[in-house]
């Protein structure tokens, strides 16, 4: 009896080759799902480790007093450094984005986009070397130098994020402004920027979250400190900061230091995760507002 005989009553089930193809497809699907779960598991393990080991170190004393018991000065220093970096990078980033979306022609836009991408792809240690040569060599490390380094890291992030929201600003808003005879600068300041504000803030917060954990520039630009007391001489002295504190403690290799490093990691990672989650929520909200 030949297998090709057609039996109209047979149920439609796969056989032979088709079964194999189905199985391959099934395996591929499981593989992709497993990869995604694996990445989430790695994130879970890292965060769980930081939480479980860092929670023991946390106390009011740890958060507010200086080394060797706490990391108060480092927290304060990181806040100062990141705030100063934001003050430098945010206006510059917004201006660059404005230039690209409002003024530049196609070729200038392409050139500017390439610049921002290259800047974004630069290893942060190179930026550290650059600012070291610019501001620290023959002088002294300072919190300000670290801020400049972080600002260079933040600039492309702010500019690209702002650019994306500026492109989302509805065209009829611009046209309405033009039709009312509003000049360019007035339209930018009173119509375009306000409606893009949510997106600009999102981009800035994401850039802050990225900059707060950058260690390579801080190691070169602001790492010579005792961590015993807060430093307010922002322009003339190295300012204690969390990333360098974690790095030095992790290289020292004493169990007591490790505990403090886990505590500092917990402080840093919770700030960063909350900032990125907040930015994400803000982004979703501003997108909804923009589209309605």
């Amino acid at each position: 009896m030949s297998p090709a005989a057609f039996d109209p009553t047979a149920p439609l089930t796969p056989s032979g080759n088709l079964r194999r193809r189905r199985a391959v497809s099934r395996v591929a699907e499981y593989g992709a799902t497993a990869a995604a779960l694996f990445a989430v598991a790695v994130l879970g393990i890292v965060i769980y480790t930081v939480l479980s080991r860092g929670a023991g170190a946390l106390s009011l004393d740890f958060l507010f007093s200086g080394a060797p018991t706490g990391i108060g000065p480092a927290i304060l220093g990181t806040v100062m450094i990141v705030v100063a970096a934001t003050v430098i990078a945010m206006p510059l980033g917004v201006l660059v984005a404005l230039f690209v979306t409002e003024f530049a022609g196609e070729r200038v836009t392409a050139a500017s986009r390439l610049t921002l991408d290259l800047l974004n792809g630069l290893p942060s240690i190179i930026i550290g070397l650059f600012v070291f040569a610019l501001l620290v060599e023959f002088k002294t490390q300072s919190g300000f130098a670290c801020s400049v380094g972080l600002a260079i890291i933040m600039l492309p992030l702010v500019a690209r994020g702002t650019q994306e929201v500026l492109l989302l600003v509805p065209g009829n808003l611009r046209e309405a402004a033009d039709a009312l005879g509003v000049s360019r600068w007035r339209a930018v300041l009173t119509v375009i920027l306000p409606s893009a504000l949510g997106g600009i803030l999102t981009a800035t917060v994401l850039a802050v979250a990225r900059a707060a954990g950058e260690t390579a520039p801080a190691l070169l630009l602001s790492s010579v400190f005792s961590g015993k007391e807060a430093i307010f001489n922002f322009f003339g002295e190295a300012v204690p900061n969390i990333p360098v504190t974690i790095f030095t403690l992790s290289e020292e290799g004493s169990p007591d230091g490790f505990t403090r490093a886990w505590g500092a990691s917990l402080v840093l990672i919770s700030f960063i995760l909350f900032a990125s989650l907040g930015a994400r929520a803000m982004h979703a909200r501003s997108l909804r507002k923009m589209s309605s």
Partner: protein
Amino acid sequence: MSAVTSSRWLRRAPDRARSGERRKRFDRVADGVLFGICALAALLSAAVIVAIGYQVIHGASPAISKFGLSFIYETTWQPNFGVFGAGSLLFGTLVSSFVALAIGAPIAISIGLYLSLLAPAGVRGVIGPLVEMLAAIPSVILGFWGILILAPFVQGTLEPWLHDTLGFIPIFGAPETTGASIFTASLILTIMVVPIVASISRDLFLAVPREVQDGASALGATRWEVVRGVVLPSTASGVVAASLLGLGRALGEAIAVTQVIGAGAAINASLFKTGDTLASRIASQFPGAITELHIASLYYLGVILLVIGLISNLAAQWIGRRFDYRRLAR
């Protein structure tokens, strides 16, 4: 706002024609000023790149004039004797980054496929952000976790197992005692590369038009065959560009690698030996470098790193540019 201003103008100058004239002139100046500062900011961002190139090369100049190009392949690095060469560091950089990419790219592309084609909408909205969150973990924390948690596991479990099963291949040599090795560094770099490549490739796969995929399914292709025959071929150049961007990230990572790679000096065939990379050597020795030549040599490492980084970035841009969404939509 505009009404308020104009009434103030009116009060100050009853002659409306003249006030309009003045306002127009003011607007023209203000437009010019706004354009000026925006252009200045854009120029500044371009100038920063040029200045970075200049300063790093300038800082390296004593080492460049002393060692010349042989610095790139010489493998001796002895600060006490004033002899420097980047050979073993270049080797460590390339090996650790390529191993990271070899492990990370397939995982990341699978994640991209899962997020774009397989996952139900609700799950996608949870797992997508979680994978991106992986990129937000600071490298210093990842490195610290690497020394204390990952390295013992790698040294005690993973490396012996790989050595026992695949030990006939020289890259899987006998494990070291500490767990600090090029392999551990590669695993840490994998964790950093995966979210970058995954989120870009997810966006690429989402851009593949639905109709083309449905057409393939209608012809009887299974889900994997749709991916294999339609989705991957039409996004191949974009996926390569994404991987190159990930490679660029891995090449330049300094801190986490310093923490787990063990600062070895020699070139070893085995991945389980210690090594060092360009970026991590800068991070570990720059703060303590005293002699001018030592500092200049570290800057020279920076020059090499800058060149490799720019090449991988520009290649990613170039390949990515050839990937055109419009070609897909047609």
